């Protein structure tokens, strides 16, 4: 797999990379997810559209990666049989457990710095 070598211009729409058997299940080797901002202090959610309707109920794990491949955030999403679109809950920023002692604003600043590195998304089924 080759990842993007430069950061996408529009950080609100991220390339979605779909590998191996997942490409067969989801009907495409690539796609796109849209970043949905939430209220102040909350992590964003993701919305995506499959190339074809889900043949059965699918449980997806979406990850958002930095340009160097490091996953920054993850979230599970369910796609009902026959549906093509999905929308996740707010993403969960990874490795933030060491910052529970920080005030909300400080913690949010760390999350914002990490989230600013988003470059592409991957999906597991």
């Amino acid at each position, binding site marked *: 797999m080759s990842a993007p070598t430069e950061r996408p211009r529009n950080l609100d729409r991220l390339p979605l990379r779909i590998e191996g058997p997942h490409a067969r299940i989801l009907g495409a080797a690539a796609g796109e997810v849209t970043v949905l901002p939430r209220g102040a202090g909350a992590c964003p959610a993701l919305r995506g559209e499959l190339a074809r309707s889900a043949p059965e109920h699918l449980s997806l794990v979406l990850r958002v990666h930095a340009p160097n491949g490091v*996953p920054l955030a993850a979230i599970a999403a369910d796609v009902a049989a026959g549906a093509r679109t999905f929308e996740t809950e707010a993403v969960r920023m990874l490795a933030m457990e060491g910052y529970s002692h920080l005030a909300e604003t400080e913690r949010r600043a760390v999350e914002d710095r990490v989230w600013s590195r988003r470059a592409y998304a991957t999906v597991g089924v």
Partner: protein
Amino acid sequence: MLRPLAKAAVYHASRQTGALRPRPLNLTFSVTYRCNSKCKTCNVWKKRVDDFTLDEYKRLFDNIGHTLYWATFSGGEPFIRPDLIDIVCECYDRCRPGIITIPTNGMLRSRILDGVARLSRHAKNAKIIINFSLDGIGERHDEIRGVPGNYARMREVFRELKAAQHPNVTVGVHTVVSQLNVHDVPTVRRHVRKEFGPDSFITELAEERLELDTIGLDITPSPHDYGVVVDDLVNDIDRSPASGIAGLTQAFRREYYQLAHRTLREQRQVLPCYAGLASAQIAPNGDVWTCCTRAESMGNLREAGFDFMKVWTSGRAGELRASIRRGDCFCPLANAAYSSMLCDPPSLARVGWRWLTRALRPAPRLAPKPLGEVVS
């Protein structure tokens, strides 16, 4: 060396089929995030979690058993824990690793000198590697590490530990190559050789990692600049070939440097990654990670009753392995890369061929003392 090679085939089969779940041969225990350095290339000292106690480590080591070949005790600054050597000795008694590595900033003099002396006596059959961090010369080092006087103090402790000549202890220098020092690394390497005379000199690329909270810090050098460093390191190895096992180690290191450069340049998993299979990391709070680059938890050992295999064989662990196998991520993390090279037949063939051709070549008459005798 034979022990990990014998297991490599099992890891290879496991990665191909996803059917087997062998225990890792290479585990990193991050014993604390606390650190008395404030490096510009690392924010780990800002993190706080509920560190495992010595008793909790004992329960874990009992559960892991004699399957470990390489154990690394990292941090934060590992020596900041007064019970570090107790933890490492318990690991030795219960897991019998062949190699024990401890990186340090070299500032806690008596803990390091007394502790390593004690560990050397206790873990008689292990090869113990103490790696001192050095990112620049003199005040430049202090500036990058955020502690005035660090260089002088570290140099003194290094000298004392080296002079102690513990028979099973390798005293090395470790340099993190970042945007802050990438142009100085060849000079640092020559300085280390001349002024420190370490048993080994290793470098690692500064990456944006979740564990260290360095995402977004712009610390990674460009592929071009890092390529210059790699050429210098490879030329140094080629100019000073070691013999025997040290030569084999050099061959692995040479392969690693080129792998790291390719990974940075090509932005893909150049070598199939065995993190989460052959290697893993345990965070100070007991979270089990495939690696410190991803820092995604397979599960928590406290919650699993210190049952390592319960976490290691969980569905979450399988999902993370699948993500790595798909090539969702890519990085030049040294610790994982050395395990991956062991499990990758083409890498092993290249390393073996290089080692053999070197071994059959007549030794240079006035070869300088080689740097880089051990894998770390």
